[in-house]
């Protein structure tokens, strides 16, 4: 059985238990449930709230480099600290935080395989003790902007098709992965259930995207699927290591997990996360969209519609 290209980017719960008080390591919890950390966390772990810590409150973007440096300083993370993420929902948000940290050039990163779920299943200890570490002076060195795609990059990636065109073929060597649920991909849903504030005016997907929901890359126990399983999952849809790949979802968090799997674990060289994702694409005027559920509805209507009689005009 093949291993991941970069297996060291995943650490086990045992490893975390052994290193939770290692001064060279900082364990960071990042969850969807914004108060889960406060109910109890891995001893020694600090919290990064994706909503309040990593996002700029005024404009739609991440915090800037000086703010990131201040955050790192406050968490006691130095440029040489190894940061290990874990969280709820199969490490979905942990991977999002990981991606932002990588974007700002922090290179010593890992994810605890299985996340919070596995830690709890193994009946390992949690604590509610509030922690603080001595502040550090952190400098953002080389940002990895190449792992982020903007709307313009995506338009170029799909060959700038005429938005009125019904079918779009991606330029040779380019691939696009939509990691949302099948209902969002098909255009039936304009937002995730329970996230109505993160909706879009148009449903469907970016032309040329294949649908591979993010959760297919993780097992029921929250751990990542094996390298062989991941390889066959993505290659079956033409997502191969040599391609230029852009992944997206709704705001870029679920696709961060897919980015982690392909770019980090599997070592695919060119994978970007389009964090504007569907909440941008589905709301911008004039962008091309494929909407299978609309096409299906039109086909049904065409079958059932009465034929207008001659002379009625």
């Amino acid at each position, binding site marked *: 059985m093949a291993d991941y290209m970069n297996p060291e980017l995943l650490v086990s719960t045992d490893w975390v238990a052994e290193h939770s008080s290692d001064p060279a390591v900082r364990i960071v919890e990042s969850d969807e449930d*914004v*108060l889960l950390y406060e*109910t109890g966390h891995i001893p020694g772990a600090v919290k990064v709230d994706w909503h309040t810590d990593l996002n700029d409150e005024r404009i739609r973007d991440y915090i800037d480099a000086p703010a990131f440096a201040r955050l790192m300083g406050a968490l006691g993370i130095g440029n040489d600290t190894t940061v290990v993420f874990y969280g709820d929902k199969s490490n979905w948000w942990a991977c999002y935080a990981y991606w932002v940290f990588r974007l700002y050039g922090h290179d010593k990163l890992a994810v605890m395989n299985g996340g919070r779920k596995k830690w709890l299943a193994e009946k390992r200890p949690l604590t509610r003790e509030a922690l603080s570490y001595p502040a550090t002076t952190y400098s953002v060195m080389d940002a990895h902007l190449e792992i982020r795609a903007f709307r313009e990059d995506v338009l170029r990636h799909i060959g700038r098709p005429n938005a009125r065109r019904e079918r779009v073929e991606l330029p040779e060597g380019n691939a696009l992965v939509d990691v949302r649920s099948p209902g969002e991909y098909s255009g039936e849903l304009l937002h995730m*259930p*329970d*996230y109505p504030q993160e909706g879009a005016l148009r449903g469907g997907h970016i032309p040329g995207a294949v649908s591979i929901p993010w959760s297919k890359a993780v097992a029921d126990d929250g751990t990542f699927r094996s390298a062989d399983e991941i390889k066959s999952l993505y290659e079956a849809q033409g997502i191969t290591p040599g391609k230029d790949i852009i992944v997206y979802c709704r705001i870029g968090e679920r696709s961060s997990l897919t980015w982690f799997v392909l770019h980090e674990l599997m070592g695919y060289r060119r994978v970007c996360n389009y964090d504007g994702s569907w909440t941008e694409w589905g709301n911008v005027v004039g962008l091309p969209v494929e909407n299978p559920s609309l096409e299906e509805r039109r086909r049904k209507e065409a079958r059932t519609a009465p034929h207008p009689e001659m002379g009625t005009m």
Partner: protein
Amino acid sequence: VNRAEIIDFLVEHARSPSNRGRLADADVIVSGGNPNCGDVVTIFLRVDHENDRVAAVSFEGEGCTISQAAASILTEMVSGSPLGEIEAKDYQGMMDVLGREVVRSRPSCATLALSTLKAAIKKYRRQRTAEGVDGASTPEGPSSREVGGPPAACHTE
């Protein structure tokens, strides 16, 4: 009240919830939420028919800290309350009770218990009307007294 105190208040309720469990002799049982997102609350409501007040209320559920803490806090708040008072509660007010500063990124979780309790009262009213009792006590219908809609909710009875 500062942010840390609000968080403590919510976390304590999530860890040691009040009124959690089934109510054996409930008049109505209504579930709300979305299992796909993991937040589900089921409200068990027994009504003091004569006085149109809550006789007993409890909940079961699972999901995020905010949704479960909110259910515990709400059931404490409405113990013995007139049903009309609950029907008139607005969702923004519920967010303020829970601490808007902390729950504002999760409005649907924060208001799930309230919207489910309102759905339970609506069902109770319908049952009473169908049984031919009490129908005249809500001439304008309960829904007309609601202020605003919940940020997101779906309910199954």
